[in-house]
């Protein structure tokens, strides 16, 4: 029996498998007390994405980021080890890192002159005599998150010292991540040019939106219908993909709250005039990985949600993460994955594909932002207390990718972390039910 304290967040979700009803109380998007609890119970109990090793070119290369609310330095130290250090002087708390990116030989706190090497060790304390022999330098390095691990060059940190390994946490999402990182002929790296933007909306609205096929034909009509036609691509193909209700329109849930939608890929609009670029890539990849795997990589479209806030989308070859600053405001960071040795033509097409849809000036993202910000404004009508995410619960045989199963997956995980001890319902999508038979 759980004790019900003021920190209990019981009753915020209605998950009724029998009636086929799943609802989320809109307080989760507006209540500052919920955000405060999320910081500790959700973000501090997960693995959080920091960056990709390829972003740090050589010894001393650093990028300042905010991860899980903490100011951190993502750095490759003088011995080539990738680290995450808190950008906080242990002495009195000042920042030790100047600029947002660059190359450093040491980090200097300008407040009292304490200096640290790129491994975070304290290497200089002015007027150390003042401490007598009591100052223990080894205890006064720059702190780091208790856990740091990487998978395929993707670096994650966790604030929870006894967190399960990153490999166990990612679990069966790993083959999907592998496919995403191997989709290029050469090593998958992050392209220069980080998109940093924001939404005046709760962070969980973007989690819901990032693998939502249902909204595609409506919110993104101007891309999939208007823009795609100007490229000589057939919009009907996309419309069919987005609305597909067929068996190969899959959605899967994984342990720890992750989910993926995995659907037939529409033709990439940018390549309509130069399909031979992709044919050539397919040939090279097939030699390396075999036709079956290449078909998964090139003919399927995957939107992967890694709980709580990492999104990988294969069609746009993007990695995206986002953090709440306030209940109604989030900061978003997004990157493009490219092959280190992509031909200039292929790279230009990939960039075009990405930015024609995604990002602040794309023909997709701004309409998402407008929708999510409108939702957030709408929550002021407290009389309409519930958001409905039931689609697919009542579908014969189980949910498909254009249902809301993936949102229910992340919400069930969120609710379990907010209400420790709670055991969520087990729902199987159509493909999961079929594989279990």
């Amino acid at each position, binding site marked *: 029996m759980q004790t019900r304290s003021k920190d209990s967040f019981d009753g915020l979700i209605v998950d009724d498998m029998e009636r086929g009803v799943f609802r989320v109380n809109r307080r989760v998007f507006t209540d500052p007390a919920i955000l405060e609890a999320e910081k500790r119970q959700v973000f501090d109990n997960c693995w959080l994405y920091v960056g990709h090793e390829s972003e740090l070119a050589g010894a001393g290369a650093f990028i300042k980021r905010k991860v899980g609310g903490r100011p951190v330095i993502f750095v490759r130290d003088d011995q080539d080890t990738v680290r995450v250090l808190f950008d906080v002087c242990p002495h009195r708390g000042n920042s030790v890192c100047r600029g947002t990116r660059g190359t450093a030989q040491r980090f200097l706190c300008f407040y009292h002159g304490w200096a640290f090497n790129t491994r975070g060790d304290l290497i200089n304390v002015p007027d150390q005599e003042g401490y007598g022999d009591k100052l223990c330098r080894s205890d006064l390095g720059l702190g780091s998150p208790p856990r740091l691990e990487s998978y395929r060059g993707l670096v994650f940190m966790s604030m929870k010292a006894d967190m399960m390994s990153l490999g166990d946490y990612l679990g069966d999402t790993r083959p999907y991540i592998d496919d995403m990182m191997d989709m290029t002929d050469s090593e998958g790296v992050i392209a220069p040019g980080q*998109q940093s933007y*924001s939404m005046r909306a709760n962070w969980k609205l973007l989690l819901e939106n990032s693998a939502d096929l249902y909204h595609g034909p409506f*919110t993104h009509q101007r891309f999939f219908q208007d823009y795609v036609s100007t490229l000589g691509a057939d919009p009907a193909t996309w419309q069919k993909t987005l609305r597909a209700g067929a068996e190969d329109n899959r959605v899967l849930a994984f342990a720890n709250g992750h989910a993926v939608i995995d659907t037939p890929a529409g033709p990439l609009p940018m390549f309509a005039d130069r399909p031979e670029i992709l044919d050539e890539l397919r040939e090279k990849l097939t030699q390396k990985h075999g036709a079956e795997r290449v078909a998964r990589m090139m003919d399927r479209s995957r939107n992967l949600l890694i709980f709580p806030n990492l999104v990988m989308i294969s069609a746009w070859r993007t990695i995206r993460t986002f953090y709440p600053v306030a209940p109604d405001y989030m*900061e978003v960071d997004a990157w*493009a994955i490219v092959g280190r040795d992509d031909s200039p033509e292929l790279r230009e097409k990939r960039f075009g594909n990405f930015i024609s849809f995604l990002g*602040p000036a794309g023909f997709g993202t701004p309409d998402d*932002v407008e929708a999510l910000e409108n939702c957030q404004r709408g929550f002021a009508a407290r009389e309409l207390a519930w958001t409905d995410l039931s689609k697919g619960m009542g579908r014969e045989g189980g949910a498909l990718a254009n249902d809301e199963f993936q949102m229910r997956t992340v919400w069930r995980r969120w609710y379990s972390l907010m209400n420790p001890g709670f055991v969520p319902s087990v729902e199987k999508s159509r493909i999961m039910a079929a594989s279990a038979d």
Partner: protein
Amino acid sequence: MSTMDSFTRQDVEDFLFAEAALLDEFRFDEWLHLFRDDAHYLIPPLDVREASPSDSLYLVMDDMSRLRSRVQQYRGRAMWVENPPSRTRRLITNTRILSRGDEGLRVSANFVVYRMRHELVDPYIGRYEHVLVPHEGGLLFRERKAVLDLEALRPAAKISIIL
């Protein structure tokens, strides 16, 4: 290049001020006529502003075909983020002609573009780095580049208007 030499800073300012008016008044058809057919509209990434569009992820990298579609979308109903259109107001100052060469006039100017929507004001601050070419006694864009000074698009998130 006598035609190139004859343009003064005031000619360039007149061109940029007239362009700003077309955009603030949503006269996109006329605006598109200010571009040469091989022109580009570019916005570099905020963190590596000097990077080239061939190896870094620009925010905008439009050739004329994509730019025409961008404008066409403004007129359709499904550009939800600009339906109805946001109000905009552009201030352009510190105009300079940096060089005159075979490729055209290299021009720089500072800008602030305000976007007003939902009773919020989002300012976009930066510098234009245009390449202009003479055409029938006037000027045309060969490259129209808006380099933002913002460190991040926060809180202004959308470049759903032309900057």
